[in-house]
């Protein structure tokens, strides 16, 4: 087995040994769905705008899964690896330490997909909601959301001075993004200028495009574009500023 596949296998094992990450990915999104989704199901249709859309909650749950992996787990693990000189140690071997970063992204990505599938199945059967209708658009929106949020996570990992700092920057960024996505206040009740920003914010655009595809519509191109641009920008800056020690 070559070094990269070995690294991925080991990182995957380490991920699965971390109960907190498993909870974030597989239990929390579904739990939130059930807590907020079940009461809503019986309520009268045609209530307040964004939150009344059937696909809003499941899309938010998926965005939550990706967001927590990208903004909590990834920067924290990379911060620890740098602080404990794991990356430095790897630099003394024939293997490029960049491969460990690749392995981390691959593992988190795989876990994100697995978490999304579990959540989607949960939504389908526990909440008796339809499966995603526009599958190609759904996959595209999901992947762009992943790319965008992971790029932000990598940028945090690159810029955070310590693992502890990375652990606080992630959540400090995550909750405002969640707010902009309309998790608490529906975006149609926000001031127009804020809603405008929110539409193109990483989680906002992810939730909207996934929700649209789930409902069978075509996601808005400007929002997909916003995700792609953020993904590229974040990755370039992360590569530029990443410190190995």
């Amino acid at each position, binding site marked *: *087995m*070559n*070094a990269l596949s*070995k*690294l991925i296998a*080991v990182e995957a*094992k*380490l991920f699965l*040994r*971390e109960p907190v990450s498993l909870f974030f990915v597989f239990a929390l999104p579904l739990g939130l769905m059930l807590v907020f989704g079940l009461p809503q199901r019986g309520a009268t249709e045609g209530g307040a705008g964004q939150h009344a859309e059937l696909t809003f909650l499941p899309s938010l749950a998926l965005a939550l899964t990706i967001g927590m992996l990208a903004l909590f787990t990834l920067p924290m693990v990379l911060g*620890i*690896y740098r602080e*404990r*000189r*794991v990356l*430095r*140690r790897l*630099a*003394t*071997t*024939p*293997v490029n330490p960049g491969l460990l970063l690749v392995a981390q992204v691959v593992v988190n990505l795989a876990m994100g997909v697995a978490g999304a599938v579990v959540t989607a199945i949960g939504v389908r059967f526990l909440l008796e909601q339809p499966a995603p209708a526009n599958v190609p658009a759904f996959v595209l929106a999901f992947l762009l959301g992943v790319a965008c949020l992971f790029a932000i996570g990598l940028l945090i990992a690159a810029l955070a001075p310590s693992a502890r700092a990375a652990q606080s920057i992630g959540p400090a960024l995550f909750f405002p993004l969640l707010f902009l996505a309309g998790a608490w206040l529906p975006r149609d009740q926000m001031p127009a200028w804020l809603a405008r920003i929110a539409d193109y914010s990483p989680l906002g655009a992810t939730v909207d495009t996934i929700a649209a595809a789930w409902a069978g519509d075509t996601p808005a191109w400007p929002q997909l574009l916003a995700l792609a641009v953020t993904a590229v920008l974040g990755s370039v800056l992360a590569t530029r500023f990443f410190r190995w020690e």
Partner: protein
Amino acid sequence: MPVIEVEHLHKRYGDKIAVDDVSFTVEQGEIFGVLGPNGAGKTTTVECVQGLRRADGGTVRVLGLDPIRDRAEVRQRVGAQLQESQLPDKLRVREALDLYRSFYRQRADIDELLADLGLTDQRNTAFHKLSGGQKQRLSVALALVGRPEIAILDELTTGLDPQGRRDTWDLVERIRDRGVTVLLVTHFMEEAERLCDRLAIIDTGRVVAIDTPSGLLSRVGTEHRVHFRALDAVDDALLAALPGVTGVRRTGDEITVTGPEEVLQTLLATLAEQKVRYAGLRVEQPTLDDAFVSLTGRAARTTTSPSTDERPS
């Protein structure tokens, strides 16, 4: 045949000169020590040898290769143990070895390595459950898992208890017995004296001396130290003026007179003549510590309680 050649190595971080001018060669099959106080530039020197840092001046050759330009080849053939490097908490001993082994062309037998390093019982133990000594041994095992020709061991015994330290020394000798050349970085005199065939003493980025431990001792000559407590007043200047005396120092109420072995006789005669009574007399023979002090002109700060961290930045 030299396996490591360092010539006029110079390295600075911004305005701070970490390594001013360091040259030495390491012969195949020896244990070569790089000894010096914290901040002397030892770690930076070996990091340049490993190709982890690019030298600002001078040349470094490892197995005839340039560690920066031929880094892939050098890394295949040089195993390293880094100061204070750790592994992920939940990674198990055998998994770590198996992972690192996959990076190399030449691969050591893991079970044999585990047995050699006394880690067989810990093979399935997670990294964070290992003791300090076990972590250190694992770190050495990782440095050896690619069957290197050279092993670079940086501050190997820092933080270990005396027993762990002695076990680790045995281990280093066994590594050399396998035919591996060892470059050992330490600020610990006893360790250097016990293990090294030859050593370079580095202070403030320069090589002060390169010699065998006994060669270094002979350089400080026959310098002995006589310690005693004077029970009556005695003039330091008078003691310092005695023939052969090279130094008089007071620490609390203890007086230390240094000089060749004959100084003892002269000193005792003088004390009797001056009717100075004394107590707690003892004579110390020269050690590597003394060699260090006389070569660098200052005390080795950390011989008894090794601290950590001499990394720059």
